[in-house]
């Protein structure tokens, strides 16, 4: 038996023994996701046990080094773990911005001190992070941000406002882009700093979205003291970290839809609501639209596979991440439109128990943000045309 097969057998046995039954079914909605953190209220004993067991194994962050609380797994081993988890429908034990955003940034740019301070609590699900990037006047044009951090000798004092801070009201710490050198040109003079959301002078106000939910906040900083060692990477070079993370974020959009449609095929769902005639969906237009979407999804997945394979061969993903971000999110919006077409009036129910309080309509509306957050579709097309196609600036 090869090492990898051995690893698979052990992993399978461990998951069988340790993954609680309740954690072996797809999420009914995103509300069931475990975010962790100081304020987290576990929804069940099983959710708590599952997170703790996985954290003990280092498998909440399978590929991070063991000394920082990760699993130290190779790419291949991590893939095996993911496959084995998928096999039993095991839920992600815990995840938040600390795992998919800050962690990779710290591993690449952080000092040893910062890694040891912040990575282990992330892995254990103890600290939940949020991201302070956008500002009211710095959306697509992120580098024009104005939140400033003044040097006061042994610390910074931060003043300003962020917007679209995901779950700022529920997070414990924030990683934040601040201007540390107001004289420098736009992209220089920005630093990437970390601080506790319980610090004096931090306040948050949730923003209600068209979906009726409030995953984002406005976040205000009024003379917030930030310790000077909490700068990731070099002072005034925070844009490098931010750019790396944006690329990383866009990469992670692999086409699997979030929420209700995760792991659900549209064909059978539509058959349930619109019925079938001679074995085909009774709505010919919807049937053709679903087929086109599934074909486009398959083509997108084939491209994702190709780009990843090239990245592993050392060519890097780079600006290709903009291609993935653009098509991944546009596909997801189409998918939710077709879901609504299929569900008819049931999809429109806004507060019935039958629909878990309007889950369908809310997720449909939420999907509209996919092509805005993390860089709009138009920004992505601009990156593709300039950086991949070499088209000239105006």
């Amino acid at each position, binding site marked *: 038996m090869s090492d990898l097969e051995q690893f698979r057998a052990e992993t399978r046995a461990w998951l069988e023994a340790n993954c609680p039954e309740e954690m072996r079914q797809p999420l009914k909605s995103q509300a069931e996701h475990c975010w962790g953190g100081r304020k987290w209220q576990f929804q069940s004993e099983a959710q708590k046990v599952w997170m703790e067991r996985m954290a003990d194994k280092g498998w909440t962050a399978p590929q991070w080094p063991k000394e920082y609380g990760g699993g130290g797994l190779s790419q291949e081993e991590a893939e095996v773990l993911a496959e084995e988890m998928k096999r039993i429908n095991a839920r992600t034990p815990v995840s938040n911005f600390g795992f998919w955003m800050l962690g990779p940034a710290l591993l690449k740019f952080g000092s040893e001190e910062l890694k040891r301070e912040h990575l282990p609590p992330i892995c254990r699900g103890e600290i939940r992070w949020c991201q302070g990037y956008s500002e009211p006047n710095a959306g697509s044009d992120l580098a024009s941000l104005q939140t400033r951090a003044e040097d006061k000798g042994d610390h910074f004092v931060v003043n300003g406002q962020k917007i679209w801070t995901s779950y700022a009201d529920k997070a414990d710490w924030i990683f934040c882009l601040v201007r540390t050198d107001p004289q420098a040109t736009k992209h220089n003079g920005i630093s990437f700093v970390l601080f506790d959301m319980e610090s004096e002078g931090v306040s948050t106000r949730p923003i209600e979205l068209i979906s009726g939910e409030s995953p984002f906040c406005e976040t205000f900083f009024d003379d917030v003291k930030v310790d000077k060692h909490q700068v990731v990477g070099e002072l005034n070079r925070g844009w490098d970290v931010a750019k790396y993370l944006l690329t990383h974020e866009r990469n992670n959009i692999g086409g699997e839809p979030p929420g209700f449609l995760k792991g659900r095929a549209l064909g059978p769902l539509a058959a349930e609501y619109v019925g079938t005639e001679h074995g085909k969906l009774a709505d010919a237009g919807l049937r053709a639209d679903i*087929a086109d979407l599934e074909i486009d999804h398959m*083509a997108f997945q*084939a*491209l994702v596979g*190709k780009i990843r394979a090239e990245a592993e061969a050392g060519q890097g993903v780079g600006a290709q991440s903009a291609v993935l971000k653009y098509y991944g999110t546009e596909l997801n919006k189409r998918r939710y439109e077709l879901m609504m077409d299929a569900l008819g009036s049931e999809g429109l129910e806004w507060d019935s128990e039958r629909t878990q309080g309007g889950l369908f309509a809310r997720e449909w509306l939420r999907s509209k943000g996919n092509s805005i957050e993390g860089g709009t579709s138009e920004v992505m097309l*601009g990156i593709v045309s300039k950086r991949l196609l070499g*088209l000239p600036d105006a």
Partner: protein
Amino acid sequence: MKLNDEQQMLQDSVARLMADKGPVSHLRQLRDEHHDKGYDEPLWQAMVEAGLTGILVPEEHGGIGFGLVGAGLVAREIGRNLSVTPFLSTAVLGAAALSAGGSDEQKAKWLPAIAEGTAIIALAVDDGAKHRPERLQARVEGGTLSGEKRLVLDGHVADLLLVAAGEGDQAALYLVDPKADGVTVERTVMADSRNAARIRFDGVPAEAMADGAAALATALRAGRAVLAAELSGLALEAFERTLGYLKERKQFGRLIGTFQALQHRAAQLSGEVAMSEALAMQALDACDRGADDADQQVLAAKAKAARVALLAGQEAVQMHGGIGMTDEFDIGFFLKRARAGGETLGDANYCADRFAALRGY
């Protein structure tokens, strides 16, 4: 999927061969001189010498048995250069059908001839204007075939016809001699300047295959997968030529490639082309590996490639502006081939419909 070293070498050498010996100018020349055979004979001969005609022929019959990924790599370069050969009709459809369903005798007679380039084979499936192999009109009764076929690629130069027909409630392929009494061939040059034919069969002797149903299914699958690769190559070339034009054409005192309206359309097109290509290669590989969902992948790949090639052809003409409408300029050939190649063996709507059926809705 990623190409292995052998496949990468094949791609490189075929790319050189097609660019040298089968460029777009040859298509134009064949069209303008109303060439009687309608294909690029010196190129076909060069492909014979390079072993490419036997790419799907098993080694025991004199081929190189390179599989569909290999055939797709050849087709991709054919698409990029709009090279005109009987590669699809003979080396793909003919070889796939005979390998899958031919009797030992039929294989021994025809497969080496395909590899050696001594026979041209044409597949006749469509009874009407649209590809509907599930509802064949042509019939075989008591060993004789009657019916009429259209879009028979290279039909007027074929040494052997493989004809799809119903017998009882079974659909299968039959071998028919194009010189037999009762066969009437009308050459129909298509909009893409390629060979096709309408062929009438009036009580013509039809030779059954060992498994004519498998031969038909295998040929259609192989043909669609390879066409997906050809259409992807065509789309890529049309896109790259257009991108080059955006970087050199000036209007309003600046390069038209600086206009955001065109930049975003070019960016979208580049992504579509990349996805079409990635899916085509994945589908070819799925066939070679015998994957369970190979049929689904091929139908998806053909549908996607047909749509993307047509989009690329349309965008190419539009972004070239007036010059794109002229016959003198080559870009129009890509649009024409996109339309004809997309129609061949089932258009995007047909493939999407079959795909949905296989997916259970």
